[in-house]
């Protein structure tokens, strides 16, 4: 039996104390990293409740594993997005949205990695390494895509709402695709482990964040 709240306290308390002592961008990063930890804790509870609800309602005759596979990515991505939405409502700078989103994603990935390492044992280094470069990176990639996309339409008024929804759908599907790959066997699973690495590589390659002015080119 793993007590997730205990893991959360161990990870979050030092960070929150450090955030109280620091200022500026470092403080913001620590706060959003802690919010990522909290998002992971909450989504762990909500996932199982929602999946059980879907399973018990006999929705499309899914098994419990399939119900979890359907619900988990959507729930986790929504939970990761909420702190960024609240931050955006405060009118931050465009660059800070990307940093905040990444911090939430990294916090989420850290908490999930700690949880899985405690649950499945820390003796297998290969498992830890694979998990870091697959599931951990998936959260970071989703957070980067979301942050970048939100920054793109930030300040464009009514464009921000449908774009945010579209990004949420896109990141949820990316996450779901990774989960499907990881649930398979053999070559499919390996492809799943490689998917976030390739996507992260592509993001690094194209990592020219949107400038201050964005416009729809017409003429």
């Amino acid at each position, binding site marked *: 039996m793993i007590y997730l709240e205990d893991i959360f306290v161990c990870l979050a308390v030092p960070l929150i104390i450090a955030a109280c002592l620091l200022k500026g961008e470092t403080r913001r990063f620590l706060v959003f990293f802690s919010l990522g930890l909290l998002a992971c804790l909450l989504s762990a509870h909500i996932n199982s409740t929602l999946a059980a609800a879907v399973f018990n309602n006999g929705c499309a005759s899914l098994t419990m594993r*399939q119900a979890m596979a359907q619900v988990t990515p959507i729930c986790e991505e929504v939970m990761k997005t909420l702190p960024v939405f609240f931050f955006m409502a405060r009118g931050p700078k465009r660059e800070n949205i990307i940093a905040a989103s990444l911090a939430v994603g990294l916090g989420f990935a850290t908490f999930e990695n700690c949880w899985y390492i405690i649950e499945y044992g820390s003796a297998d280094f290969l498992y830890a390494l694979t998990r870091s470069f697959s599931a951990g990176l998936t959260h970071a990639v989703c957070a980067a895509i979301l942050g970048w996309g939100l920054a793109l339409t930030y300040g464009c008024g009514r464009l921000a709402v*449908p774009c945010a929804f*579209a990004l949420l759908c896109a990141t949820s599907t990316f996450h*779901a*695709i990774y989960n499907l790959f990881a649930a398979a066997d053999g070559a499919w699973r390996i492809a799943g482990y490689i998917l976030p690495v390739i996507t992260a590589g592509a993001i690094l390659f194209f990592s020219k964040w*949107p*400038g201050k002015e964005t416009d*729809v080119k*017409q003429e």
Partner: protein
Amino acid sequence: MDTLETLDFISYIVGGVLAAAWGILSFWRARGEKDGSLLFYLLSGFYACVLMCDIYYLLTWVVEDYPFVLSPGDLSWVGGLSFLITAALGLADQWTPGQREAAKKYRLPALAAPAVCIAFNIAYITIYPEIIVNYLLYAVPTVILSYFALWLFLTEHMGSARHNMRIYHLAVLIWLTVQLFYDLFSTLGMDYGYAVPFEICSWLLTLTTATIYFAAKKGAGA
């Protein structure tokens, strides 16, 4: 796997490859602009969503032996529609005050598009009420997008102002129309399996998805 099922499988693979190609092209073009072109960034998001929808559908086929009726893959399609809605709103924001004034008179005629979409969706729900959630999930963004696409098309086509993007709006409208028929044949085929009209629509959908990029490129380059 029978012939039609194989054709369907291939259409998803071809659709995915094309979506990846147009997505990369859209992104590349957007990056080439001085301050970034929002339209092409949004189109790359749209193509990424189409690609992910195809991948998810094929993966559930391979991993789970059959595709889910309602899944995150469907959410990806909704995401794609939302990217196009954002693009439509962005293009409308570029209008001059004169164009905005002229656009007002096309608001009412533009309601014809959502009316058609709603009629089709009522038909789907009547034929196959078991997956009403799926239909509603698709219907809402489709109705919104169809309204904006027709409104923007009418304004640019009939109005006296710039006409650059009308071909883009027309491409979106054609794509939506094909999607409506694709969904109709998909609904009719729920009980009878794959059919030739469904396959034709499936390939037409792949084709018209690609035309959206070219229409945007032509409009932007005009």
